[in-house]
Each structure stands twice: as structure tokens, then as C-alpha cells.
């Protein structure tokens, strides 16, 4: 479980990025943190593996206060995939890149070999095993970075802007992958601006603005509330916008994905036909 208690954080240059954030994320939860640029999203998640330490309040990862543990010990539980994760690559081959973290954590040689094979398979990278990561395309490098984190099977997976610069097919794969992780009871936290992506995967949404949490709840409740969303510079998903504009036809307001929208519209048409 991840818990933040009245968390404050001020950067050395004086910017107050978090102003009293309190939240609990239970094991196995899928959370999307959303908000405008500079709302403090990335600052918040950097507290979850101890990269940043609170300047006020506290953060606990399973009863351990982050100020009392090193990033390396926390990272064993909390995997963190950076926004430009492809920029962290340095090894000669993809295989070595994925083994890097496993070596840091002191896994045994045979386990490392098995985990690397597993992660390569999982992210469809097996054919690049011996290729240099620098020869791969941007999307492939991102997958290598993700594989290099998944390889040690962290219980919590944090992804910062995972959909940026990804085409539709890659996003679809990412969605499938997240659903698969969910069935394995992993805690998944994503930071994103992509409302359409969030609408498709129905997570718990935490909405941030100016260093504070302004809303926290089901995606369906939050993404269909334009008054709250506007505070965080977010517009509702396109489907929701249509339903909100057609609410005088007695259509429900809380619709965020296309399947649901289709059902509701078919119902309406059937009623009209009767």
C-alpha cells in the first residue's frame, strides 16, 4: 500500500510543487493521476519510490517511511518507468539492458537469464535480444525500458506519460498490458493527459491542480464532470462531450467509452421505434 500524509514538497529553487497531498493507494489498484502541466503529478509519483523526499508530511510504502529507505530498496517494490524512458538506455545489447536492474538487485545468474527471456517475450522484443538498444526505433526503445523495469517483477508499477508519442496500435497494446497486470493484482499508477486512454481503461482517477488533489474517484464520475475537469485544464472524452450536449434527449450523462455509448444509443433508438 502507498500512503501520503499531508505531503508538501518545495524544490530547491523555491517552487512549491505539492501543497498538502493526502492519499492512499491500495494493493492491486489501478490509478490514473491527471492534471494540468505543472500540477505536481510527476513530483508526487517521484515520492513513491523515494527519488524525492517530502519537505513536509510523509510517504509510506507498506509501513516503510520513504525517508528511512534508499531508492534502491524502495525500487525493489516500486518500478518506475520514466516519461523519456528510452533516454536511460546504455548497454550494448537489449538483453544486457534488461539484466541491468536484475544485477543491481543481486539476482542469481540463472534467474536473471530466465527473467530476461520472460520480459523479452512479454514485450515482443525477443528478436532484438542481441541488438543494440540504440539501433531500435523510439517505440521499441520505450518497450525495452518498460521490459527492463518489469523484469524484476515489482509489485507496484508507475508509468509517467506512457502514451505520449505512441501510435494507436501501441496504445492498444499498452491497454491490454495494463489489464493483464491488473489481473495479476499489481498496483498500477499512470500519470497522463490522455483522457481518451483513461476513458477506455476505467481506472480510479486522481485529479490534481496547483499542487493539490481536487478530485479523487471513479473515472466515470470524474471524467463526466466538466466543472471539475476545467480546473485541471482537461476536457471530457469526446463521447462524453456528445452525451453531455445531448442530455436534453434524456440520455445519461455518465458515459465515457464507446461500447457503453453504443448500448445507450441503441436503447434510445429502440424506444423511439416502439
Amino acid at each position: 500500500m502507498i500512503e501520503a500524509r499531508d505531503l508538501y514538497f518545495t524544490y530547491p529553487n523555491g517552487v512549491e510543487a505539492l501543497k498538502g497531498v493526502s492519499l492512499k493507494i491500495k494493493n492491486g489498484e489501478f490509478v490514473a493521476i491527471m492534471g494540468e502541466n505543472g500540477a505536481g503529478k510527476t513530483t508526487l509519483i517521484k515520492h513513491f519510490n523515494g527519488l524525492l523526499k517530502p519537505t513536509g508530511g510523509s510517504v509510506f510504502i507498506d509501513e516503510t517511511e520513504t525517508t528511512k529507505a534508499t531508492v534502491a530498496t524502495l525500487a525493489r517494490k516500486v518500478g518506475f518507468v520514466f516519461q523519456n524512458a528510452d533516454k536511460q538506455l546504455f548497454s550494448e545489447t537489449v538483453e544486457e539492458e534488461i539484466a541491468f536492474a536484475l544485477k543491481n538487485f543481486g539476482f542469481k545468474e540463472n534467474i536473471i537469464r530466465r527473467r530476461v527471456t520472460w520480459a523479452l517475450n512479454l514485450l515482443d522484443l525477443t528478436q532484438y535480444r542481441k541488438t543494440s538498444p540504440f539501433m531500435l526505433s523510439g517505440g521499441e526503445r520505450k518497450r525495452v525500458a518498460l521490459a527492463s523495469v518489469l523484469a524484476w517483477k515489482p509489485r507496484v508499477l508507475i508509468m509517467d506519460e506512457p502514451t505520449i508519442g505512441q501510435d494507436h496500435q501501441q496504445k492498444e497494446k499498452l491497454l491490454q498490458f495494463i489489464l493483464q497486470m491488473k489481473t495479476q493484482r499489481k498496483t498500477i499508477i499512470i500519470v497522463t493527459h490522455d483522457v481518451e486512454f483513461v476513458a477506455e481503461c476505467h481506472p480510479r482517477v486522481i485529479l490534481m491542480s496547483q499542487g493539490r488533489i481536487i478530485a479523487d474517484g471513479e473515472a466515470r464520475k470524474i471524467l463526466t464532470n466538466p466543472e471539475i475537469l476545467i480546473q485541471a485544464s482537461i476536457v471530457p472524452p469526446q463521447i462524453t462531450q456528445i452525451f453531455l450536449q445531448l442530455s436534453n434527449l434524456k440520455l445519461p450523462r455518465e458515459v465515457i467509452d464507446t461500447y457503453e455509448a453504443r448500448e445507450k444509443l441503441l436503447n434510445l433508438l429502440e424506444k423511439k421505434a416502439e
Partner: protein
Amino acid sequence: MSVFEGLKFRRVYSPIHDLDPRIKFIYVCAIFTVAIIFLELIPLMILFLIQIPFVVLAGVKREWLRSMRGAAFLATIIFLTNFIFSYISAGPENTAATVEYACALTLRFIVLVESFSVFFLTTSPDRLGLALEQTHIPYEFCFAFTTAVRFVPVLAEEAQTIMDAQKARGLELERGNFLKRIRNYIPILIPLIVSAIRRSLELAEAMESRAWGATKNRTNLYALKMHRGDFYLVGITAGILTVAIYVRLSFGIPSLNDLLGWLF
């Protein structure tokens, strides 16, 4: 690293910031020259003190102190090596003179750091580039220079991000013996170099698509012009140089020991 802190420009405005960088540079060179032609403690002390009003006027005291603190380590080394070697050659009976000699050499270094840090703390990379251009240095060199200066903070930020990313993958920089610690930096240096090269290629493409080098005669939106303050600084610089050269050629400068001996 803190010695570099003193070289980092911050956007503040003061009479010193407004001075023409060319004149400031001439001033720094003059201080440099004077520091080289004297090896006695007293003139170097005066030279050190002359620059304090500039620091105060520019409002960069804190940054300047930081760079002085950064220079302290090197200054100590300079003092110790000079003291030890002159002590060996001059013998124990001349300890006071030896200390003074080592102090003078150290102070000379401090004066150099001091003047350069005041220059860089109060001159924006843009104005520096403009100054280079107006002294008819080829634009390619000016551009390369200003870009290099401007990208230092960008690279520093990137290094921090990469460090965070590798720490999140369990890298412990402070772990292991000396050699292991150096090797720990490989996962940070390689991505940093790769991204710097990528960035420079991208920058080159972006520049070319914005007509870089299309004409030989570039014009500038801003041009450097001499103002009243600049003329004052020229006067001050000429004054310092003249007095220094005159004193050097005409008088024997007493050592601090002799001076104290006469006075008390």
C-alpha cells in the same frame, strides 16, 4: 562543482549587468595582467578589494561567495605546495617570508577566479555572443560558444533525470570501492553523451530549416552600444593599469612583514 556555480549567469539587472561585455572583458584582462605583474601580497590584496564594490553593486554576493568557496580547495592546494617547496629551499629562518610568498600566490589565483566569476555572473550568454560577433569573430564560432554555454544547465537537468531513472532501476552510485564507484557512472554518462549528440543533430536540422547560414551578412535585433557607465569602466581600467605599471616600474614594494615591522 561549486566553483562552476560562480560562473552561472542569473537574470538580474544592475548597473554592472548593463555594462558592455567587451569593456567588462577588457577590465577582467587588465585585472589579470596586474595580478600577474605583482608577486607581492599588498598590491594583490588591494586588487582583491577593488573588486568587492563591483560584486556589491551587481547584487551577486551570494553566488560570488559560493564560487569563492568553490575555489577554496584549489587555493589551499596552491598555498600548501608553494609553502612546502619554498620552505624546503628557503629554510626555517625565513618562515614569515615563505608564508607571505605562498599567500601572495594563492591570492593571485583568488583574484583571477574572483574577476572571472564577476564577469560571468553579470554577463548573459546572449550578450556575450553579441559581443563576440561585434568583435568580428566568425558567427559560427560565436554561435557554437553561446550554445555550449546555454546548454550547460540543460545538460545538468538531463543528467539528473538519467540519474533518477538509473536509481529507480536499483543503481547505487555510492556503493563499492573507488573503481566500482567510477564504473557506477557509466550508466549515466553513456545516455547523457548519446542524448547530447542526438540533441545537437536535431538542433542542426532545426537551424538549417530556419535558414541558418543563408546570407553572409547577418543583422542583429540588438546592437551593443557604449554608454556612460562603459566609459567610466574604461577610465577605471586605464587608471588601474597605469597606476599598477607606474608603481611596478618606479617603486620597490615592501612586503607585508617589512611594513608591519616599520609600523610597530
